[in-house]
């Protein structure tokens, strides 16, 4: 296999809070190939966003702390870089789109000013060049009358349009990797469909790799090639997208897929609910983090946290009971 674009090894991130230390990410390792789209799925507090923020050096410290781990991007460890070094990479080679387009745009600067800033900073364009390129970018993401809108402020755009501006900004320096953190969650379904369509088109045109963080399995099904499922700060399952949906092996993944009502089936089936609540992460559990909510829990699960192991081609799962899950899961 070719050298991966990004290789994260054993990442651990904690936060110091008045109530104690929160173990947000507990030893996460994964790879990303060039041009690949990786979906990262999990509920709030599972560590999916913190993982990506850690890689980009965006964890406020204190209270945050990257305890250990490495993140090799083109053979250089992002976690060991100085503030200046990582700033050169962020926005140029790796860029990010956030969930809330209103708070991630500066409300007192025009969209044009915010779009031209990375172009002038990273690519050294002149003002005129940058403005021309900014208009091109807005056009590329489907904003009508792009040139006129450069002088508008963020509040003059709708939510969907603002997210398009964010995408234009993220793509302005032709990054090799785009990290999208729930970019469509705050938007209506018809707008969400517009944006996922746009991202797919741009991916095919520009060929960048994408890490798409979401809690919505439906979005992942249509977009990602490979999926990582996170729970309680751990990766608990990883597989190519078709394999994950056809053959989920972790009880949490099975539960997540079963808890979704689907538009393509008539609604009489009772939804499978996962009883209990996600863990609080104040201590790193000695047992499997999902054990308190698991239907397949065995004694061994309480004694040792299962490692993420390869159980089928490209399919990794962290569960002692996966052979039973495979036999007994509802279909």
């Amino acid at each position, binding site marked *: 296999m070719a050298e991966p674009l990004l290789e994260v090894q054993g990442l651990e991130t904690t936060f110091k809070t008045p109530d104690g230390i929160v173990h947000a990410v507990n030893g996460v390792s994964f790879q990303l190939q060039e041009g690949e789209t990786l979906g990262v799925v999990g*509920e709030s507090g599972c560590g999916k966003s913190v993982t990506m923020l850690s890689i980009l050096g965006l964890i406020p410290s204190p209270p945050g702390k990257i305890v250990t781990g490495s993140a090799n991007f083109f053979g250089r460890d992002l976690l060991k870089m100085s503030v200046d070094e990582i700033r050169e990479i962020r926005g140029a080679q790796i860029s990010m789109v956030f969930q809330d387009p209103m708070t991630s745009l500066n409300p007192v600067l025009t969209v044009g000013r915010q779009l031209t800033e990375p172009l002038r900073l990273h690519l050294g364009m002149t003002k005129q060049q940058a403005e021309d390129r900014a208009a091109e970018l807005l056009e590329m993401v489907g904003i009508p009358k792009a040139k006129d809108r450069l002088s508008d402020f963020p509040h003059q755009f709708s939510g*969907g349009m603002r997210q398009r501006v964010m995408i234009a900004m993220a793509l302005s320096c032709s990054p090799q990797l785009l990290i999208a953190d729930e970019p469509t969650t705050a938007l209506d379904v018809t707008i969400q469909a517009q944006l996922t369509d746009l991202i797919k088109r741009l991916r095919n045109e520009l060929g960048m790799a994408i890490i798409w963080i979401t809690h919505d*399995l439906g979005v992942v*099904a249509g977009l990602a090639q490979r999926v990582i499922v996170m729970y309680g700060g751990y990766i608990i399952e990883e597989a190519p997208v078709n394999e994950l*949906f056809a053959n989920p092996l972790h009880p949490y993944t099975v539960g997540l897929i079963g808890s*979704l*009502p689907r538009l393509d089936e008539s609604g009489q089936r009772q*939804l499978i*609910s996962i009883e209990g*609540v996600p863990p609080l992460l104040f201590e790193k559990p000695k047992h499997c983090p999902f054990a308190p909510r698991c239907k397949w829990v065995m004694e061994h699960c309480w004694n040792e946290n299962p490692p993420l192991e390869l159980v089928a081609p490209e399919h990794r799962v962290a569960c002692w009971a996966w052979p039973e899950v495979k036999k007994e899961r509802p279909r």
Partner: protein
Amino acid sequence: MADNNVLLRVENLVKHFPIMRGIFQKQVGAVRAVDDISFEVKRGETLGLVGESGCGKSTTGRTVLQLFRATSGSVYYDNVDLTKLKGEELRKMRRKMQMIFQDPYASLNPRMTVGEIIREPLLVHNVATEADANDRVKQLLELVRLNPSFTTRYPHEFSGGQRQRIGIARALALQPSFVVCDEPISALDVSIQAQVVNLLEELQDKFGLTYLFIAHDLSMVRHISDRVAVMYLGVVVELTTREELFKNPLHPYTQALLSAVPIPDPVKEATRKRTILVGDVPSPANPPSGCRFRTRCPIAESICAEQRPEFREVKPGHFVACFFAERFMK
């Protein structure tokens, strides 16, 4: 018209919010949040009300309960027009109609204990003495599968899903027959959503509740509803049974909405054809003339700008507001 099966009948309901300007607060316009809608909710059924943000679905729910007073139109509950009631008469009716709110963080008073929160409706409506009320609170907590000893705790000690259960217990305290569920699960995590939906369904079976279930998540609406009404920019564009709506959607907006919902199945997603709507929802302060949807509609013609399409029954039980609905009929 006095059909005994119908619990709630909404007729030509309109709710406009005035826009005021200047120091004399002169009215310069109105946000037409709900603009002439009619529908019925049958006893014991769940009517799903779906639409995107700003389409007026929550306003509809609140106007039905008289939390907003209607600009015009009527809301008949058991053949009593709620819009004409005032004071004590309205208060009496309110016992029978309750609401479950979207945000379990904002809808519970942080300074009240769980016991006080659930007890409040009982005391306000004078249906129980203090001692009876305490027993009733414990029963209600058990009903929503919370530990009855939680009565002395405060809302911040609970997770989102548990808070939503507290909200449900409060709504059921007065034994209502009609409950408006205003996006009760959209603030919750996926694995918790199923818990709350299953609970709502179970309570409906147990007490014969009638739900108006407001949501933007079509898959969830499909799961829980018997009939579904689709709203767009203040009007209902389509209303029919769940099976019919998802099998034969007749309004172009419903069709687009359905095709926009992602399906958690990569094999199906890969081969799916989607209708992607262009543009955004227009402002309800200045809606398009004629058909509200025409500015984004793939099949709009000149007549759509001139006339407002009538909300008509194109086949038994299937209502659509589109001039060209017949084109899509099998």
